[in-house]
């Protein structure tokens, strides 16, 4: 993508020492197993994929807190460096454009997640409770947001209506949980060769070739998306 190349190029030209900045952040990170530095471009690529996947998937996907934090500090870092540039300099314009594009992607991505969190609050909270810490879909900030939101809605409902209602029956609370339609169709592109993907109710199997595109119910390929073997488009 040419825009992303611009960033890479711009970063190199002005010696903004991307990798050094990112390495700094990585040092604080205890879980950082192999110390191989990740480039700004790689971070952006991961976020862009996460963004399109999130926009296309009916359910909430795994959070990307680490990548997001890296990108945000990178943005802050670039802004700092750019203060010294002349505003009418063409390079300033290119940088500024790229920053705004990155900001837009991050904002759009997080907005999309908030929409899902608000729509399926209880469903998501319940599911995350059963997951290991490493597999939780909600970031810690989102988890707090979800809890607060659920509480505010409950408070509103209680004050206006439910406290005046008799007998909440067993199963009623479950009945009210809003969940996404996992069988809704999505557009999928295979990143790698995947064999034996079940594509129908009658266990029909299909082999995906790298780069091939498909329309398919989300649930049948959710694990491929999770493992990054395929992405939604």
């Amino acid at each position, binding site marked *: 993508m040419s825009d992303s190349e611009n960033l890479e190029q711009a970063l190199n030209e002005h010696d903004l020492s991307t990798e050094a900045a990112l390495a700094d952040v990585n040092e604080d990170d205890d879980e950082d197993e192999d110390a191989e530095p990740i480039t700004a471009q790689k971070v952006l690529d991961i976020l862009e994929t996460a963004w399109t996947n999130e926009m296309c998937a009916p359910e909430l996907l795994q959070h990307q807190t680490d990548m*997001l*934090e890296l*990108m*945000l*500090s990178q943005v*802050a870092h670039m802004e700092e460096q750019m203060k010294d540039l002349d*505003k009418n300099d063409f390079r300033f*314009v290119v940088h*500024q*454009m790229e920053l*705004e*594009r990155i*900001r*837009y992607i*991050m*904002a*759009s991505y*997080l*907005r999309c997640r*908030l929409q899902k969190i*608000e729509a399926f609050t209880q469903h998501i909270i319940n599911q995350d409770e059963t997951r290991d810490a490493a597999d939780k879909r909600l970031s810690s*900030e*989102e988890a*707090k*947001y979800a809890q*607060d*939101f659920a509480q*505010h*809605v409950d*408070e*509103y*409902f209680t*004050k*206006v*209506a*439910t406290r*005046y*209602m*008799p*007998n909440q029956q067993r199963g009623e609370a479950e009945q*009210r949980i809003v969940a996404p339609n996992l069988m809704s169709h999505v557009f999928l592109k295979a990143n790698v060769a995947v064999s034996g993907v079940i594509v129908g109710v009658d266990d029909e199997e299909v082999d995906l070739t790298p780069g091939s595109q498909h329309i398919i119910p989300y649930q049948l390929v959710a694990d491929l998306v999770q493992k990054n073997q395929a992405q939604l488009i």
Partner: protein
Amino acid sequence: MSRSNQMFGDNAFDLLKDLKRSAQTIPAFDDDGVRQVLEEIKAIFEENVAQASSYNNSGDRSLWPLLNYRHAALQRNKRCLLAYLYERMQRIKAMRWEFGPIIPSDIKQALCDPEVQFFNNYSKSLASYMRSVGDGQGIDLTGNLRPPKSLYIEVRCVENYGKFELDDGEVVHLKKNSQHYLPRAQVEPLVRQGILQHIA
């Protein structure tokens, strides 16, 4: 409750009909309507409790269909009422994104107290979430709404706004009908609020 021509649950359904019909931002909270539904729920419940106990004592099943019907009606009432609140909540949420953290006073009049509280709570937790993102670096999600294509945009001032300070300290006077060439990201909120108009 007139039983001859009105079905159980019709009041509750009317709440939703009125809400669906109104394309306005949000119609006034229907205090009376909600109270009537709650009363109907209570009445059905009490009748059912009374008859269920007599059924338990005598074992007479002849009233079973009626109990059953009333139970369905009670659940129906609840569902309609809660759907009414749920839909209003969606619209109240939308106001936070479109108007910002303060609701225009004439719209506020359409909300009941718990709804105003909900709006304030929602607004607060959204703000604190936005501040906390990225290890406290923060990001404004109510801005950056469209993919940027240009850094600067041409805008016309729709009303007298007064001084507006840009990030770099430059101050512009936003007078009605004046035109400016300004950084897109910084004036987006003003366009959203209808103070500036983005012209081609």
